């Protein structure tokens, strides 16, 4: 950069992906080859794909843990695993699926898609984006490191005190979990901040907040939720760690603490978390289902308001996980009522999808199959949730396999099915190739049948009294057949997942070439080549309606959306900031170059957390100091980023 500037009237040019402008943008934005480039890239598409691959790897790990448990439980009085190992298996399975798979997979899609659907060149904080991925990876490996230390967390994913206290749990098991979750919370928090600011600031001009795709509403809503909820669990685990290692008394009743404080802090976080891991998935379905119904979503505004209402109410229902703890009657009544009310905004989305299918002309692609399955399972999981919102039935059902069945209908139904469908939809954008429809439909049917064979009978297992988290059970109490069916179903489900991944691998190599818009989708990502170039858009698009690519058919726009004429913003790495509500141009932003700082700071923090875990205090200190030094260098004002005054040369 030669002359710094404070103001610019942006020119407007006609351009496409073959122009000289596009070539110069390519040079400006591309990631350097080699290991250094791999470590230092801040391209949101690269980071998004890394999130997806890593989260799927954790899904496989969690799945293997589940299969071992299902073999153990297939018949009564088995001894495949010892009771202690079984405790570790179900704990690690829950931690993996809920924390290391369910949100990160959605963050992967959101990272990849946010700038593309919003018409931007990158996320608001590209380096922070890389940082959130590296921290996610490091904290996941940190928690899985407990396997090497043979000290795997063993108190279930919700980890109730006092069992998690040192007196009952002397090893490193709980410390891995406590510190690992505080570590992971950093990733979740900075990632959420990035989504919120990107949503508010990085939209194409003209994209007022009633024109953004629903998936960005879903992710932004839960990101605000995360900002407010994650501190609760970080604090809960910090208390746990100091109780264990420094003799504080947050959870120990004998010195004035209270074990239920753990449950409050944990569920204040973990109930909103249920919505956190489903609302972005619901958003993806709300956006992609209309592709296959050949019409816009029915009730855009209702779905958006339903999303926000669900998240807000989600903060007011945490006590329904604690109905059996002896809380006051008034609290029971209030939280039971709130838990019933929350079904209303959730039902709005379901009715919108059904109406979209009903009034559209459905094309039954593989993705459509997954979305239809998603809706069906959402209804079943929702209804079993309403059953437990009622205090008397919850007192009967809590801590039985009924709850296990419910949570799996919710999480597999609303998260996994939506994710598998969404990958069918956006895989062509990411890879340039289509996934096989035939294999996709085969994998859908195997997964759908396997899932229901496994988990539908499990409701009955629970109603017939089988408690969760027991490593085996006696013969002849009526659970034998049901458990065998569930185990068989689990393996069918696993085969379906293998077929699905085989489809991914085969399609990556030899899938049909996709072209820019294989589904005839309406939103901005479909104006880009598949896969999109590093700069996404040669000129900043301008948006005049909710469905820029369908305007000629819908006739609902004020003016005309343009993506071949607009601001080039090619004086270095630049992006456009727009106003939060109306999406009017507000500033030209200087975007950072690739940087190894996020990776290096992650290494420093990892060293710090290992130091805390093993109580090697000098290592913790070095890690903290290196983290701060790294952040200082990272944030040092740069002239290239227009953060410094001009005269200071």
């Amino acid at each position, binding site marked *: 950069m030669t002359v710094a500037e*404070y*103001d*610019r*009237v*942006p020119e*407007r040019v006609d351009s496409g992906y073959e122009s000289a402008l596009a070539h110069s943008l390519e040079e400006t934005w591309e990631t350097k080859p080699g290991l250094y480039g791999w470590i230092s890239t801040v391209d949101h598409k690269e980071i998004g794909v890394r999130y997806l691959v890593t989260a799927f790897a954790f899904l496989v790990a969690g799945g293997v843990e589940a299969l071992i448990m299902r073999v153990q439980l297939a018949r009564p009085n088995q001894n495949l695993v010892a009771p202690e190992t079984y405790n570790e298996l179900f704990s690690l399975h829950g931690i993996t699926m809920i924390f290391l798979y369910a949100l990160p997979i959605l963050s992967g899609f959101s990272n990849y898609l946010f700038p593309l659907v919003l018409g931007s060149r990158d996320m*608001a*904080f590209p380096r*922070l984006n890389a940082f959130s991925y590296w921290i996610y990876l490091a904290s996941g490996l940190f928690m899985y490191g407990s396997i090497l230390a043979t000290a795997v967390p063993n108190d279930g994913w919700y980890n109730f005190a006092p069992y998690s206290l040192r007196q009952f749990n002397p090893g490193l098991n709980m410390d891995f979990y406590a510190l690992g979750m505080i570590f992971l919370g950093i990733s979740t*928090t900075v990632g959420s*901040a990035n989504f*919120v*600011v990107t949503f508010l*600031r990085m939209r194409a*001009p*003209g994209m*007022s907040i009633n024109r953004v795709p629903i998936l960005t509403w879903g992710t932004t809503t839960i990101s*605000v939720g995360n*900002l*407010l*909820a*994650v*501190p*609760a669990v*970080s*604090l809960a685990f*910090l*208390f746990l760690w*100091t109780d264990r290692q*420094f*003799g*504080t008394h*947050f959870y120990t009743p004998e010195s*004035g*603490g*209270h074990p239920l*404080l753990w449950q*409050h*802090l944990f569920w204040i976080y973990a109930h909103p978390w249920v919505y956190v891991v489903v609302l972005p998935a619901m958003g993806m379905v709300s956006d992609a289902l209309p592709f296959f119904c050949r019409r816009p979503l029915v009730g855009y505004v209702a779905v958006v308001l339903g999303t926000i209402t669900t998240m807000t109410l989600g903060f007011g229902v945490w006590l329904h996980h604690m109905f059996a703890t002896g809380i006051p009657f008034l609290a029971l009544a209030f939280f039971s009522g709130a838990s019933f009310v929350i079904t209303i905004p959730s039902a709005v989305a379901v009715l919108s999808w059904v109406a979209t299918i009903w009034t559209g002309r459905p094309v039954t692609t593989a993705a459509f199959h997954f979305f239809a399955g998603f809706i069906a399972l959402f209804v079943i999981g929702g209804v079993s949730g309403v059953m437990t919102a009622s205090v008397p039935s919850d007192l009967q059902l809590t801590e039985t396999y009924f709850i296990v069945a419910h949570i799996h209908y919710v999480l597999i139904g609303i998260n996994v099915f939506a994710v598998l469908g969404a990958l069918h939809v956006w895989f062509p954008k990411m890879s340039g190739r289509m996934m096989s429809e035939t294999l996709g439909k085969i994998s859908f049917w195997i997964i759908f049948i396997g899932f229901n064979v496994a988990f539908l009978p499990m409701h009955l297992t629970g109603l017939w009294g089988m408690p969760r988290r027991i490593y085996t059970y006696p013969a002849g109490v009526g659970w034998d057949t049901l458990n065998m069916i569930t185990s068989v179903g689990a393996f069918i489900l696993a085969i379906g997942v293998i077929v699905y991944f085989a489809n991914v691998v085969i399609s990556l190599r030899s899938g049909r070439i996709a072209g820019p818009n294989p589904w005839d989708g309406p939103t901005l990502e479909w104006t880009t080549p598949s896969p999109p170039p590093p700069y996404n858009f040669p000129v900043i698009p*301008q948006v005049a309606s909710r469905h820029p690519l369908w305007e000629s058919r819908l006739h609902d726009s*004020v*003016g005309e959306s343009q993506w071949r004429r607009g601001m080039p913003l090619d004086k270095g790495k630049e992006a456009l*900031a727009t106003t939060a509500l*109306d999406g*009017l*141009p*507000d*500033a*030209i*932003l*200087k975007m950072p170059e690739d940087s190894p700082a996020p990776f290096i700071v992650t290494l420093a923090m990892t060293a710090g957390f290992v130091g805390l875990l093993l109580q090697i205090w000098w290592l913790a200190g070095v890690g903290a100091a290196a983290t*701060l030094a790294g952040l*200082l260098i990272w*944030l040092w*004002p740069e002239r290239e980023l*227009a*953060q410094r*005054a001009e*005269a*200071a040369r």
Partner: protein
Amino acid sequence: MTAIDQSRGLPVGSMGRRANGWWGMITLIATEGALFVYLLFSYFYIAVQHGREWLPPDLPSLSLSIPNTVILLVSGVAVWRGESLLIAGRRGPIVAIHILAALVLGLAFISLEGWEWSMEKLTPASGSFGSLYFMLGALHLAHLVIGALILAALALWSALGYFDARRSAPVSIGALYWYFVIVVWLAVFFTLYITPRLSLG
């Protein structure tokens, strides 16, 4: 909606509240603010499980905490003044001196709180009140130390002449964090030092 004005000039780079960093700081403050809400929730949750006897016989002392509160408020004024001077067009040393003054006051706060803790009979392990007292104080202090490091960097960068009236975003963003740390202290101070002295009858 109104048509987009194509001829208007746009500011380039990080400009005040148009900088993404400013928005990022708002999100950071939201999440850190939530952390202290949960801390105070924990304090009052444990407090209501017990009666008056939960509090230690010697309540946390006001003799250092009140001067400390004043020190922190004055430091906030110093940062605010430095930021205002910068935005009004002053540069370099005068801004750096104001930020430096706030930093010195912040360090004074840290030292005084350390002194107070060294005289305290309570320990983090002496019971749930002690645990909460030190955890609230320590987590606030950790935020204050981060804030002090931010002020040190801003003072250095100001002295180097990095900022002027239009390139002032880093100072505004750092100042926002410092104000947040001060507001949190007021909540912590009220909870730990004032509420035990409020009599209900």
